[in-house]
């Protein structure tokens, strides 16, 4: 039997149990990374997901080269993750409730937001307005995608404007903060939602712990950026365990339906 070591309590977990427990440690409840496809599977009604915006691909329009070129980085990441980009969007049902759903994946260049993520959030926003169905986005991102320079910064404005039109259409907008959500995503569409839910153990901040530590030249409190600290500081509405997310979302969607 294959085993996995919990990142938090370091106990060995049998792979099968780990997956059945939704990538959460059965001993310490530590919420581990879950990829976007698996997230979809555990969140939506089976066979209800219809993907949108599949034909949009990133472009190395700056010919960005650090230690490797952006175009090579994109190709490698696509192969490694079997994803097209850092977000999957589409229509789905959650316990029979229609939603426009976006799921980000930290595994795709740190879940960074470039032109494609921005465009997909815009497409999803337009779609939910057209269909008059709630907008739900699972966030996971290190921030803006540096390889697209200032254009990635502009995606913050682009996504905020898109979800603003959703809000103006009186359509409920819910975000779920998963580990980690920071930088350009935390300072744009993630935090302007009507309801913000955090998963346990999700780092949620603007500046990451390393940068903050460098600035204040002191050790950070151990709970820096955690869901618990964010709840205490009034930055999120609630913390919900992964195995209760589906029912919490269902309940909220029903409340908005009247």
């Amino acid at each position: 039997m294959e085993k996995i070591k919990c990142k938090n309590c370091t106990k060995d977990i049998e792979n099968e149990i780990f997956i059945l427990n939704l990538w959460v440690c059965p001993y310490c409840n530590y919420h581990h990374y879950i990829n976007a496809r698996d997230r979809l599977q555990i969140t939506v009604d089976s066979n209800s997901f219809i993907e949108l915006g599949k034909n949009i691909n990133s472009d190395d329009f700056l010919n960005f080269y650090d230690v490797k070129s952006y175009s090579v980085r994109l190709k490698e990441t696509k192969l490694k993750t079997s994803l097209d980009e850092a977000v999957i969007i589409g229509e789905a049902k959650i316990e029979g409730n229609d939603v426009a759903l976006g799921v980000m994946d930290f595994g795709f260049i740190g879940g960074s937001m470039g032109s494609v993520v921005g465009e997909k959030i815009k497409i999803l926003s337009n779609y939910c307005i057209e269909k008059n169905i709630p907008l739900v986005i699972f966030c996971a991102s290190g921030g803006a995608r540096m390889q697209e320079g200032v254009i990635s910064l502009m995606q913050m404005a682009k996504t905020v404007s898109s979800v603003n039109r959703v809000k103006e259409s009186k359509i409920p907008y819910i975000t779920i903060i998963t580990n980690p959500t920071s930088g350009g995503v935390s300072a744009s569409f993630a935090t302007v939602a009507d309801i913000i839910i955090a998963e346990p153990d999700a780092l949620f901040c603007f500046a990451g712990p390393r940068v903050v530590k460098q600035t204040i030249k002191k050790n950070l409190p151990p709970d820096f950026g955690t869901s618990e600290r964010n709840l205490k500081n009034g930055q999120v509405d609630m913390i919900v365990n992964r195995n209760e997310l589906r029912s919490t979302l269902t309940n909220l969607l029903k409340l908005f339906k009247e």
Partner: protein
Amino acid sequence: MDLKKLEEIPKSYFKEILGALSKLEKLKKIPFFTGIHFKDAERDLAQKIESYKKVERDAKRAWKIVELSRNENRPQCLDYINGIFEDFVKLSGDRLTGEDRSIVAGLGKINGKTVAVIGHNKGKDIKQRLEYNFGMSIPQGYRKSQRIMRLADRFGFPIVTLIDTPGAYPALEAEDDGQASAIAKSILLMFEVKVPIIAILIGEGGSGGALALAVGNEVAMLENSTYSVISPEGCAAILWKNPSGTKLAARELRLTSRDMLRLKVIDRIIPEPIGGAQNAPGRMVKIVKKYIIGALERFASIPGEELKSGRARKFESMGFFSTE
């Protein structure tokens, strides 16, 4: 092949060229190839070196602009406010928890009309820099800016923003007070107001902290100012994992005003006096004043709804991608 040339090549490309060179040298030693000229290979290599040297020249040029944009003798937000707006009244506080001095806000008159002015001020000497926290803002600053923007919106005053910040202040208290949501709400509000917003990047346009004031109907940039998703230093630390990549990062990020115009992120470049704004601060202020008067006139007769939807259209069309 002149090996001395190699010293001028940026370090990250060094390996690649050295590899190609040694392959060539090895090839020459194989008896079968002796006597055969390697002109093509040598020319290719020389071309490669030339193009790498161009990369380095560009990097130096970009870095020079980064340094100019940070020059402490450049006119700052308060210089523009004092030199441009009559009867300026400074307004303070976010009415929630505090006052952030790194953002200066208030009402003043230009060309006989009242406008709201909001900008980052960095300070010039070390005492001032500490007072203004080097132009790095905290949530209280962004929320003050939102308060003044709402005020301007209610009374129909156009909004002029002057952007000059290394970025939002990365501190524990700022994080605890909701830095991310403060910036996001500032961006959101700029898609809601129905008055013209004229955004001018006067120095450093650092990341989300800059964008929080920069969602303008018209966005202009002083010739030697910069606009970037991350500082070259920060970018080098993450991608090159080494500060030696800083100048190269300055090039790769494409952060100059010319790049911004080409990428259609800004609408206009405001020319600076020869050598940079620091050489003639008074003249720079006058040029900016003229620009603001012109910009306000351009938007004066446009209805509020159109100003609002125009901003949404403009920013929602930004991005480069391919569609199959």
